[in-house]
């Protein structure tokens, strides 16, 4: 690490001398070749959590492989705590000290694109069309902002319905509920068993979108111009109403309306407190550690009038506009879209963004198949700079609806009008 930092300094020095000598003021055309060695920095959260398998895969296998194929380009990966990465990026952006590449949370891409600090890859990468076709459409859509794509999916995930044998048996079922009706029936069947049918941790877009979409509703129109008429459409209202009714009959605990003291979903399902949750692939690792005897049962989100549609999560890789090594960085982005990179990261617990690799992914671990299937139809949350405000709006407006003080239609209409303001470009 130290050595490559030294080499990096020498490289940067050499590059700047070359720049001055050639009289160019922009990045040289042959950036990152053996004559013009460069070092690119890559910030991410791979190493978070004390489990170094992902960071090791990157540092010990993938980056050396890339550097071998591209002599003259050195990649330095810097691990940053995930919860603080946005703050660090924002401050660095203000001080013009951004790295070359970032493994960015989906919601940050439109935000930073709007600030103007990201390079529109759909414009600058000649093979962008091919690369983008190979990824899940929902994951790709998270990079779209004002008609241009500002990143490529790096890894993805989604939420599926997870339940337990104990809950199914108590409800007298052999298979997880596949439709809204079965879901409601399961809740009724669990009355009196001491198991609460379904739990979720909030009312933001991540929580409520799968239900709205599966119910045949929508958050906005396709062009992201208006939410009014879509968020409060009859189908959207019906989907949320289903949850509100279950909440009222005690089948959904107040964890969903913000009780931070309620038993968490990760605790509640294995302990038999909850009958079902929506969660992501990372739970497998958590449960195998703390609740080794628990065997989760994964199933698609119960289907409503819109089918079984879930919400896309994951990270995108973005290139900062201030990077002095655009070409070299783009080479690395291309590298992250190769089978080798994707499969290597699958082995460490990341899900691939390529549907074509889903079979190989399932060979690594069975349970991925449910997630891969769900990803085929999973949709992206609103890719707008104000995405985090959307979560706050939804939580704030829907909580009274769950508490019964406001009708679901009114709550969704109120939320829709506020979201419309965001869509118009307001703050």
């Amino acid at each position, binding site marked *: 690490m130290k050595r490559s*930092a030294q080499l990096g300094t020498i490289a940067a020095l050499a590059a700047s001398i070359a720049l001055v000598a050639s009289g160019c003021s922009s990045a040289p055309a042959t950036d990152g070749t053996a004559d013009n060695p460069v070092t690119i920095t890559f910030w991410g959260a791979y190493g978070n959590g004390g489990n170094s398998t992902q960071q090791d895969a990157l540092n010990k296998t993938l980056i050396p492989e890339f550097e071998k194929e591209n002599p003259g380009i050195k990649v330095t990966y810097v*691990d940053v705590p995930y919860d603080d990465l946005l703050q660090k990026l924002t401050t660095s952006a203000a*001080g013009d000290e951004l790295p070359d590449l970032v493994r960015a949370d989906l919601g940050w891409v439109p935000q930073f694109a709007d600030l103007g600090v990201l390079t529109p890859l759909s414009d600058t990468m000649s093979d962008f069309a091919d690369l983008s076709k190979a990824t899940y459409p929902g994951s790709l859509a998270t990079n779209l902002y004002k008609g241009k794509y500002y990143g490529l999916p790096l890894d993805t995930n989604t939420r599926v319905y997870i339940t337990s044998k104990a809950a199914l048996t108590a409800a007298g079922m052999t298979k997880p509920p596949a439709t809204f009706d079965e879901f409601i029936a399961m809740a009724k069947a669990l009355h009196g068993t001491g198991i609460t049918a379904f739990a979720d941790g909030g009312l933001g877009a991540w929580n409520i979108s799968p239900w709205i979409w599966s119910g045949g509703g929508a958050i906005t129109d396709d062009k992201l111009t208006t939410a009014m008429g879509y968020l409060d459409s009859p189908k959207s209202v019906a989907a949320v109403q289903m949850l509100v009714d279950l909440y009222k009959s005690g089948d959904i605990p107040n964890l969903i309306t913000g009780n931070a003291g309620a038993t968490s979903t990760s605790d509640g399902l294995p302990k038999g407190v909850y009958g079902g949750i929506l969660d992501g692939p990372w739970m497998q690792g958590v449960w195998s550690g703390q609740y080794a005897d628990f065997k989760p049962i994964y199933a698609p989100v119960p289907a409503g009038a819109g089918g079984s549609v879930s919400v896309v999560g994951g990270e995108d890789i973005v290139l900062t506009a201030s990077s002095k090594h655009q070409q070299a960085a783009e080479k690395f982005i291309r590298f992250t879209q190769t089978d080798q990179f994707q499969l290597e990261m699958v082995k460490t617990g990341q899900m691939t963004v390529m549907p074509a690799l889903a079979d190989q992914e399932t060979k690594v671990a069975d349970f991925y198949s449910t997630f891969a299937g769900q990803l085929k139809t999973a949709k992206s949350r609103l890719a707008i700079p104000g995405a985090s405000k959307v979560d706050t709006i939804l939580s704030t407006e829907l909580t009274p609806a769950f508490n019964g003080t406001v009708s679901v239609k009114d709550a969704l209409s109120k939320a829709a009008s506020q979201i419309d303001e965001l869509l118009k470009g307001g703050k």
Partner: protein
Amino acid sequence: MSRIQPSTVLRYAALTVGAAIMITPFLYMVSTSFKPQAFVLSNPPQFIPNPATLDNYVQALTTQNFGLYFLNSLIVAAVSTALSVLFSSMMAYAFARFAFPGKEIIFRVLLIGLVVPAMMLIIPQFILAKQLHLLDSLAGLVVFYVAGSLALNTFLMRGFFESIPAELDQAMQVDGANAWTRYWRLAVPLAKPAIATVTIFTFLACWDEFAWSLTIINDPLKRTLPVAIQLFQGQHSTQWGLVFAASLIAVIPVIIVFLVFQRYFVQGLTSGAVKG
């Protein structure tokens, strides 16, 4: 042999109960640090880990460069504390002993530094640090840690310096001592309790500081301990046993500093300097 007073027994009883309340959460933290893969804190609480394991400590200590992060934090905290104590005690002495134009205005301006939330200064300070070429350096941490602690330390020490009897100063003045001598030979030794307090607090603040260190340090080799411990928190879930173990390792120097300096609390203020 002295009779044991009932008041003494009562005193110790009260202290013991109080101490028990104070350390119970801490004890639970210690206990959880010996539990394997504690992703969640169990209910009902399990104070005795079963099975108990040292894995968390081993993992924390053998994390790449953990010793280096420890050392970085130690250097930064020690240097920052020393400089801060020096500068702020000088300021406090001036405020306590001299009357000069602008004195109270300057003191009130120092107070402003206390009331502004540090988070809002982070971007202007980042840009400033960049202009001063302090980015990605331990020196950048020291400069801003010292600056940030001056207001509190000066405020605290001014009160203590003011309660040193003026006669002692005047006695030295008559003997021909200049201001620096009086400060260094008289005020500082007499204000040992205050200086010990300030040392303990400043060391703790610098040792634990997270946001600024996260923001300006990019080179993993210059990372400090709080950031390293935060990295033990996962993106989707966290092994709290591991985080607790690392936090406990990190708490040791602070306790040591406390134990070393807290004995100065028992030294008398006027150890025979003024008679009558």
